[in-house]
């Protein structure tokens, strides 16, 4: 409950530098990325190391400021939670917020699946005969019942271990919760590692510069964005693990862990769709 005179339970947040700092970071990250990809200044310019083509300086600067914002912002939230700002109604608000964020993420993946399905289903209208088949000529797709199946089982198992951790915490079994979360984080890392191994064995290229075509584009971008979400989810769960170890979560109050678990299940479901359609149904 914030505000001295307020007779309600909403959280009126203190003024904060993070939105502004984060926006500056986003701007610098964007021009750093453009500099790296397309070059905002020539190679002999004094700030070519920041914004010249292929430079990493501008990107790194923006990235650091964004990370700094995340640490500062979410650190402030932990402090506010500790001092009791997160009342029951604020807690419900954060639940809405997380569900809606995941809804927007689902729509992001809709774009990638949309691209994949259009190419997989309507391949016969391509003019180049090599591209008019699915998969395109010369593309050797992965055997779904090898590494992809293993990864499916890993993610499904991690879905159960995160539920184990959640239920243990609800019953005030801190040890169980910690072990469950450790398993989940390790399984997340295992998934990412296997995905890296799988990528290194791909018999098709990502870039047209390496002889690739739309199969590599849709495959790597869809599974790649999923992989990025697995990494983010793993970090999210690892933060919850550290917060659990630091005694910041109780049987009653642990929304951070629940949000991480929701996010993890979302990542899991996206993978099931990827596995079913990209790996199995349209393996060719």
């Amino acid at each position, binding site marked *: 409950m914030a505000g001295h005179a307020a007779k309600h339970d909403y959280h009126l947040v203190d003024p904060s530098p993070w939105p502004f700092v984060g926006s500056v970071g986003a701007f610098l990250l964007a021009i750093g990325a453009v500099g790296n990809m397309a070059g905002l200044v020539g190679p002999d310019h004094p700030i070519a190391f920041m914004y010249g083509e292929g430079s990493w300086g501008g990107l790194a600067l923006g990235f650091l400021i964004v990370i700094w914002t995340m640490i500062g912002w979410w650190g402030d939230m932990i402090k506010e939670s500790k001092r009791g700002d997160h009342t029951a109604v604020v807690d419900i608000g954060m639940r809405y917020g997380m569900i809606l964020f995941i809804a927007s993420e689902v729509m992001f993946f809709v774009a990638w699946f949309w691209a994949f399905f259009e190419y997989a289903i309507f391949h016969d209208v391509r003019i180049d005969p090599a591209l008019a088949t699915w998969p395109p000529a010369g593309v050797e797709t992965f055997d779904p019942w090898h590494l992809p199946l293993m990864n499916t089982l890993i993610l499904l198992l991690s879905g159960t271990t995160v539920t184990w951790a959640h239920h243990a915490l609800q019953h005030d079994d801190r040890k169980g919760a910690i072990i469950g979360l450790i398993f989940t984080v390790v399984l997340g890392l295992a998934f990412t590692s296997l995905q890296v191994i799988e990528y290194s064995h791909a018999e098709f290229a*990502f870039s047209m510069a390496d002889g690739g075509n739309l199969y590599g584009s849709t495959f790597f971008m869809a599974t790649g964005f999923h992989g990025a979400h697995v990494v983010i989810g793993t970090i999210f769960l690892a933060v919850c693990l550290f917060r659990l170890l630091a005694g910041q979560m109780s049987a009653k109050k642990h929304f951070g862990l629940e949000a991480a678990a929701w996010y993890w299940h979302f990542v899991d479901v996206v993978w099931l769709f990827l596995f079913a359609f990209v790996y199995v149904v349209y393996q060719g």
Partner: protein
Amino acid sequence: MSADAATHDDHTPSLWDWRRWVLSTNHKDIGTMYLVFAIFAGIIGGGLSGLIRWELMEPGLQVFTGEDTGWGAIFGNAHNYNVVTTMHALIMIFFMVMPAMIGGFGNWFVPLMIGAPDMAFPRMNNISFWLLPASFALALMSMFVPGAGADLGFGGGWVLYPPLSTSGHNGPAMDLLILSLHIAGVSSILGAINFITTIFNMRAPGMTIHKMPLFVWSVLVTVFLLLLSLPVLAGALTMLLTDRNFGTAFFAPEGGGDPVMYQHLFWFFGHPEVYILILPGFGIVSHVVSTFSRKPIFGYLGMAYAMVAIGFIGFIVWAHHMYTVGMPVDLKAYFVAATMVIAVPTGIKIFSWIATMWGGSIEFRTPMMWAIGFIFLFTVGGVTGVVLANAGVDQSLHDTYYVVAHFHYVLSLGAVFAIFAGWYYWFEKIFGVKYNSFLARAQFFFFFIGANVIFFPQHFLGLNGMPRRYVDYPDAFEFWNAVSSWGYVIMLVGMVLFFAVLIDAMIRRRKADANPWGEGATTLEWTLSSPPPFHQFSELPKIK
């Protein structure tokens, strides 16, 4: 918590304290920043449209002659004309109308109308705002860096179709524009999450969903559209980015890709986007019409669910923007039918506004004039929309000035008139001072006449086959183009009057009443002082 209590004091911080704005977690201050930002962006976007009308005033090249004036993208060659039309559209959509309606009025009045002390996530609210200047800066930068070869800026239209947006513009301008829209999208998605959570979780006791003011309903539908459509645009923009820089083949036929695929993804976002631009205007107009007719809005529930229906159908009509890409006739038939269905809920709204006025004791105060102007002009734009919905007719009207006239009637004359209705309806509430209603009405008449003189002749030009996005035209189109350009001058006078109203109000500082509109103004914001306290509703209002 006493240490932090000072920052929550009801005492309003000084206007000149930079921390009040930069570090803000106050929905009203953030709303004000959005409004100021929208005015600033509107000046730039409106200035660009002035260049368009200047160029098209006569056949031949006036402004974009290709002579080096040292002004880069502003006065360059025909490519720069296309840059100017592109940036005019993007600025007006993403940096003027959306920030004004959702960011400005939404932030100000959604919490006030539902009886909440602030937004659900006040700090996230501020990053939604501050990401916009970052995004705007990237968009403006793009005009001054290489786009296509040595030509500066991106000139492929606001829809960013490949191959113009991929191999057609190889310079960094397009990359800046892509990331600009990514950041604007993040801003809007965070804002959408904030509004939905606020509306679902923070309504005052007794404020059931079926008692919410229609403006709150309109914002609720709008932000759902944002939440669900913007991520798809983000996906499409990312595909453009990787096609450009990392060799993917999404829209590259030589790798099996398909540029039409981009159009599908874009318009799956783009069609909901045009409703995002107009729906909050529906909400504003409902309040204004009801207030100045001294009657509750006619058919409240029908009005609310008409907006829900418009939002839903808005997701399943996107390919009517793409009738000429060569889609099958059956598919066109579906999109024609689905598109025409939208006329039903829209008709419910128009007729309900008229029914609200019917038998009411109507007062032609400044906001009411803008609202009635809105209803008339939006109806004109809606009718030409039904014309364009026909795939057969659109075959010849696609990408002509008829389309330009249509969407300016619903946006430049619809959405913008609704913004001004809201501006003059809530001006005293926001700034706490009265405005000169004579000047404000004069602005209305200059706008109403000017906008019609600009855009009505464009129907004729379009029907006669004048294509859009082109720097020159045959002599036959000279007359109506000249008329259209003179209309811009009339509207410009209105714009000057707008600033005159603002300056006059700020100099004279006549203290505003809590409720200047009398018994017709029934929503909660009128129960508060003008301007409202820094933190309102410390004790939540109870709704009967």
